[in-house]
């Protein structure tokens, strides 16, 4: 049941308890307890809203930054990662295998704001060897949801 609950609320965190219980064929109280447990165990970490900022009048720039760093003795990458993720403008920080070490995503008000964050804050951190900044031009799909097209039912209306 855990897996099913997670699969559903990952796509629709607004679904209400009653409906969740109905479609899973379970009791409301059991679902409520399971959700509580999932939250307490830190498996459910938050309930966010997906926003296509492009469609608003609010200016927003998202960047992906590849960061190469020197791991520190005894700390590995964790220390530097922590120093990076504490900046509120940083959206996510991932340790990556391959050509670089950390992938940082960042929301800024403008290109300038992002680039000054990179040059002033990020690249000057001790242990950061180099950065490469990629600005996102268009989001086609995010969190499994296609942003550029709406679902259209093209089936015949009645079929046997």
């Amino acid at each position, binding site marked *: 049941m855990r897996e099913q609950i997670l699969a559903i609320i990952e796509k629709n965190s607004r679904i209400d308890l009653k409906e969740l219980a109905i479609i899973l064929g379970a009791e409301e109280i059991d679902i409520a307890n399971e959700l509580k447990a999932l939250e307490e165990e830190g498996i459910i970490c938050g309930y966010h809203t997906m926003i296509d900022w492009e469609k608003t009048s609010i200016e927003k720039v998202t960047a992906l930054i590849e960061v190469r760093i020197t791991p520190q003795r005894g700390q590995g990458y964790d220390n530097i990662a922590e120093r990076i993720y504490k900046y509120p403008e940083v959206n996510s920080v991932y340790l990556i295998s391959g050509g670089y070490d950390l992938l940082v995503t960042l929301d800024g008000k403008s290109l300038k704001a992002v680039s000054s964050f990179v040059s002033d804050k990020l690249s000057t951190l001790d242990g950061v060897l180099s950065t490469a900044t990629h600005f996102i031009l268009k989001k086609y799909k995010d969190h499994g949801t296609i942003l550029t097209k709406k679902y259209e039912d093209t089936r015949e209306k*009645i079929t046997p």
Partner: protein
Amino acid sequence: MRNPLADKIVKVKPSGIRKFFDIVNEMDDAISLGVGEPDFDTPWHIRDEGIYSLEKGRTFYTSNAGLKELKVEIVNYIKRSQDVSYDADHEVIVTVGGSEAIDIALRAMINPGEEVLIPQPSYVSYEPCAILADAVPVIIELKEENEFRLTAKELRDAITDKTKVLVLPFPNNPTGAIMEKKDLEEIAEIIREKDIFVISDEIYAELTYKDKHVSIVSLPGMKERTVLINGFSKAYAMTGWRLGYACAPREIMEQMIKIHQFAIMCAPTTSQYAAVEALRNGDEDVASMREAYNQRRRFLMNAFREMGLKCFEPYGAFYVFPCIKEFGMTSDEFAERLLHEEKVAVVPGTAFGDCGEGFLRISYAYSLEDLKIALEKINHFITRLREEKK
């Protein structure tokens, strides 16, 4: 001018769904719960394989019975799902949808005047196909109190010495009924005893919500007398690709292939390549679609319970078949009023046989959001009907 037409086809009634289809199509804003196909797109990796086959120029006929690699995958699938072995070279045919398989199976097995047992309510093509094959269709009226399963008694009562074939349409469209192993065992005994054959249309085999589907071919002595029909439309959301298949004893299969060879040549090549991918790597897609259907099924059953609308719990396909007898109208009247007054389209049960009278087929091949809106409207409608009655 002479009459250009054949009496046989003129006598066949056009599909009962057609009339309704025309009305619905004229209404732009109608919400339809009348569709008999999945709402999901074909999974992308399957579509991609079809596209890739076109890019590589695989645009020629395949052999009549179908691509060898597809037939092998079909045989593997039946082995892993039913633990029954077929010979890919002599016992399998790839057809243009399950529908073609129904047609050629009947034509391969029937001599004029022999009787074909057709349980109803069921899919619209069995009876016309039987007539076109010069069979005498004999309808078995399934009962709601048996959850629309075929019982041993109903079967026994319908068999005469002219009976040749039983069509076994489970999991069932339109009722959503299934036949479980014990149900099948009971009828299999009679089938063997009376020495008749079975055309088992299992196109909804992957969409069951209780135990896994059991095919009648897995019962002792039944593979030898059964044409098993399945396809890709429902399990993999591939209706438009027009691809199905049949497995049958070599003797029957040879004749089916002859009809197919002269009438069809071969099933669409692009679709066959896509289908190989579906059977090799599509299990997860099927599982996630099945789960989505099951959630919607529970949602509908709960909504009916809350409305006080009588409906047996169906465990297969993607239909529910609620009973509307309490309103004292025919299925047709009910469906037409529902359409005009609330702009919700459902299919009257009578489109699937006379014994569908008093029932509606409601499809849940729609998103939960759409179902919610439609169910709200149905609730308004029946509340109004109940007030009118007072």
